[in-house]
Every structure is written in C-alpha cells, then in structure tokens.
C-alpha cells in the first residue's frame, strides 16, 4: 500500500550537515501497525513528517498506491493529507482558541464534503476517549492528558487510511495510555487504519506487527521475537 524508497533528508546546523534520514526504505501494508523506535534526535520524527507529506525529502519516494506523494502539487498534497492521513503529534496539538469539539472537527473545515454528520462523529469520538463532558471546554481548561486524548480523537475524525503518531502516549498516565492504545488497536482492527508509531516506549511494540529501529538517520528492521 505504501512504499517508501531511498528517503534522504539532511539539515545544516552551523557548518555541519546532519543526516536526519539516510536512505530509508520499507513497505507498509494496509492495516499494518508499525513501530519505529529510536533515541531522541535519531531522525524518527523527520521520517514520519516525510511520509506524512509535511517535509520534502532530498531523495527518495513515498508512494501511496499509485500516487507518488512528493510529485503532487501543494494544493493536492494538502487535500491528500486532509482526506487520507492524520497525525498525532508529540506536543499538545490543540488550537487554544477553539473548544475541544471545534478542535476535533477542524480537519472538516478544509473539506466541505466531510462536514455532513461531523458533529455526531466528533461527539462519538469524544465519548470513546472519555471527554464527552468536555466538548465545550477550551484546551487551557484540560489537563495535559486530556489534551492528548482530544488530539487522539481528532486523528480519527476524517477516517484516515493512515495515522502517523509521534510519541502518542507521552503525557498519559499508565491507565489512560492503555485505554488509548486499546482505542488505536480497535481502530486498526475494525476500520483497518494503518498506524506508524514513533516512540521510545517499548510497551507499544507489543501491539505492532512490524518494528524498526532508527539510529543516526539509518532505519533498520528489527525482529521483536
């Protein structure tokens, strides 16, 4: 379904050129749960951003079915992200001026076709993450964990084919973390949503069927036995 071939991306820091992603290649099938493990600064987030169409690689291709992501125009790429991909970021990614409900339905703002029934879908997702009574609250009125749960709910709103998650459970306590991972697992099994998860957390590995390790930009497959 997704074929990633020979991705390279480097950054210039002062006079040094840092290779964030160095010739990364792998294949993702529909419904896969892929974990990419690595230390901070190993290039995981950059790789995820290239796969999600957020930053352009210097070399390599990201092919979704028959579509080469980086050959799309900027508008088409935005539309592609809006309809087929969603993200869970490692930071609190809610817009502070919007209520929880408005944050959840935000992707539909950019896709008129997706607006029908969006409120019901959003409220349903909010009950799945235990925030049904917080739909009119603002992010500043929520705890860090609740904000993360709201961001996870938003990731499912546009029924994406793939969710790219960057440290999705970083701020959560163990109990909530397990609940969120269970939600992701259910979405993976019931709706066939593909997950690529970047994490330090080896517990997440148990839920994933493919594992990779990233070290200084080099991606290697890892057998978790």
């Amino acid at each position: 379904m997704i074929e990633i071939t020979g991705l390279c991306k480097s950054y210039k820091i002062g006079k040094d050129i840092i290779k964030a992603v160095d010739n990364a290649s792998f294949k993702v099938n529909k419904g896969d749960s892929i974990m990419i493990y690595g230390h901070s600064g190993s290039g995981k987030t950059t790789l995820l951003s290239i796969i999600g169409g957020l930053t352009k690689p210097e070399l390599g291709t990201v092919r979704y079915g028959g579509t080469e992501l980086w050959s799309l125009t900027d508008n088409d790429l935005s539309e592609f992200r809006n309809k087929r991909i969603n993200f869970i970021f490692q930071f609190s990614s809610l817009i502070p001026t919007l209520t929880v409900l408005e944050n959840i339905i935000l992707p539909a703002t950019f896709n008129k076709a997706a607006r029908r029934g969006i409120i019901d879908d959003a409220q349903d997702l909010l009950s799945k993450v235990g925030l049904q009574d917080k739909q009119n609250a603002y992010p500043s009125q929520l705890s860090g964990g609740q904000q993360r749960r709201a961001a996870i709910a938003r990731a499912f709103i546009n029924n994406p084919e793939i969710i790219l998650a960057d440290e999705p459970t970083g701020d959560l306590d163990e109990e909530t973390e397990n609940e969120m991972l269970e939600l992701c697992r259910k979405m993976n099994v019931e709706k066939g949503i593909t997950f690529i998860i970047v994490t330090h957390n080896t517990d997440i590995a148990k839920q994933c069927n493919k594992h990779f390790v990233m070290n200084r930009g080099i991606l290697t497959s890892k057998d978790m036995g």
Partner: protein
Amino acid sequence: MSFSLSTLAYKNIRRKFFRSMAIAAAVMVVAATLFSVTTVMDSVETSLTRGTKRLGADVMVVPTNSETKAMASLLAGEPSTFYMDRGIEEKIRKIEGVKKVAGQLYLKTSRYKCCDTGDMFIVGFEPEHDFTITPWLAESLKSPLAPKEGIMGRSITAYRPGDSFQIYGQLIKIAGMLEATGMPFIDNALYLPIESFRDMVEKTDNGTVNIFDKINNEISTILVQTEPEYSPRRVAIFIESRIEGVKAIVSEDVAASVRKQLFTLLRSILSISVILWVMSILLISVVFSMIVNERQRELGLLRALGAKKTDIFRLIISEAAVLSLSGGLAGIGIGGLFLFLFRDPIKAALNVPYMWPQPVNMVLLVLICLFLSFLTGTLAALYPAVKSMKMEPYAAIRGGE
C-alpha cells in the same frame, strides 16, 4: 454548529484582545486624521466654489478699507455693513470690459428694533439689473417683485412663500425662496428690491432706526460681470484706476488666495497623516510578524490537517482586514464626531463657512478612508502572511517548539 476559517480568525482576534485593540486603534488614528483632514479640505473647496459661484460676479466693488469686512461677509458669513456713493454704479457701468453691473445695499437689523424674526441681514438689490439673486430662486417668480415683496434665504425657515411678516413697521410678503447655498451670509438674508427698501426707510421713524439716515443715496457693494474677452483682473484694475475710494475684488483671486493659504496648512497636516499611515503599516506589520511567529506551530498544524497555503494566507489577511476595517470605521466615526463637535473652532480657525461636503463626496470620502484602512491592515499583514504560507508545515511545527 457552523465552523469556518472566519470563526478561527474571529477567535484569534479575541485571543489577545488588548493587542487586537491596539492594532485597530493605530488604524483608527490614521483613519480619523485622514477623514477629518480630507473632509475639511473638501468643505473648504466646496465653500469656495459655491461662494464664488453663488456670488455670480467676476468683480465685487466695495468701499476702500471695507474689503476685509466684505471678505468676512462672503467667506465667513458675518453680516457687516459698509456704504459708498450710489453714483459709482453708473461710473462703473461706463468702464471698458464691464458687461453687467448690479448694486446691493446691506443692512444688519438690530435686535428689539426690527422685526418678528429677530436679527436679520437685509439685502437691497436692483431687480432690473440683478444677475446674482434671481437666478438662484428655487422656483421662478410668477410675476416681477411688487413693492413690499421680498425673497428669503433658505435658512429662514419660519416663513414660506406667500407668508407676510413685519419689518420696521412694514408688512413684507415673501414672494420666493432661494436655493440653499450653505453660506450663512446668503441663506439667512432677506432680499428686497432696493426701491422698496428705500421706501421702507422713508416711512420708518428715523429717530428709532437712525442707520437708515445713512443709506438714502448710498450703496454697499457693486457686483460686476465682465465681458468674456476681458479678464476680471484687468477690469478690476480699470475700476480702481478710474474711480477713487473703491476696492475691486476679483472673485477668483479671493478663492485662489484662500485656497492657497488653507491648503498649504491642510496639505502639511495631510502629509503628516500620510507619514503616520506609513508608520502604522510598518508598526502593524511588525506586530503581525510577531503574531505569526507566535502561532507558527498552530499554522503548521493547520497545514498538517489539510489547510492549503491560501487558507493560511486568508486566515491572516482576514484577521488584519477585520481589525483594520473596524479601526477604520471607528476612525471615521471619531473623525466625523470631531468635525461636528468642533465645527465652530474649526470655522473660526479657517475663517470660511463650514459646510459638510456634498452627500456624494461624503460617501466617497468614507469609502476612500475605509479602503485606505483596509489597505493599512492588509498591506501590513501581507509580508507575514506570505511568509507563513510559504513555510513548510514541518518547519512551522518545529519552529514553534
């Protein structure tokens, strides 16, 4: 529940209310200054154009040393009286280049001694020679003015054509009304045929109204229309060189000199406003750059969720447009209020009649000021908006970390 980019823009404006108000206030100051200065400029221009057009004469002849009073009457609408020998009128009629001559006699009535209407400016004119009053009648007279019939300026609202009222013991009937000119000198006057005027004088008790003693063979102003092939300035020189004790004022020179004097001052204020405008654009641009930097991660996030570059551009520009239009509207309101509240000091300072511009001009001024206000915000936000829309989503998200 409807939610759109406009909702987000509106909520962003409310997020930092004080900062948003400061941006709107900067535009407001510029709009208020531009609106009030351009309105005053337009008022002055309208006043001068109307005044000279309304006067209808190319040259106005007054007694020497009375030109200041005459100008005050003409431009500021201050009733004043000055007299010269009526025989001068015939002398002027014979001067080369003179086409038409019409004399006018001025009388400022005094409170308690005059009439039902209170203080009034009475102008005696010569219907047989007149070319400055009757052409401005709102409706043509059905017949020539009879003795004890007069024409009213538009601002005397207590009477309508057909009504009569007492003036110095005489019953005067209103035969017609002039069109409004906006000039108090013209709009607040009663116009009587000069012979009726003198008749009224003769029948009035001189002991009570002693000013009439002076005007039996005198006249206040002689209005001159020149032949097309003679310039008014040349005819004025002829008049002054051939008749002693008079001053010939060229209408267009009056307007030109006042225009030059006032517009030099107003242009200086306008230049300061333009500098203020440019500075506001720079200032607001800096503030919007700060806003965009502050929201970099949010903008990157919006892009990640599917916002196009144009959505980001629209979001920032619409925030700027709403703030600048609000500031512009408030500025126009404050500018208008300022002009209304301080119309008397402004009038005193400018020494010309203060008239609001024509409705069409007023609408145009409001629209131009609103457009400039809109331009202030949008120009200021243009660079930050283009910069943020060009930013790669990942770089924006990382930049905000």
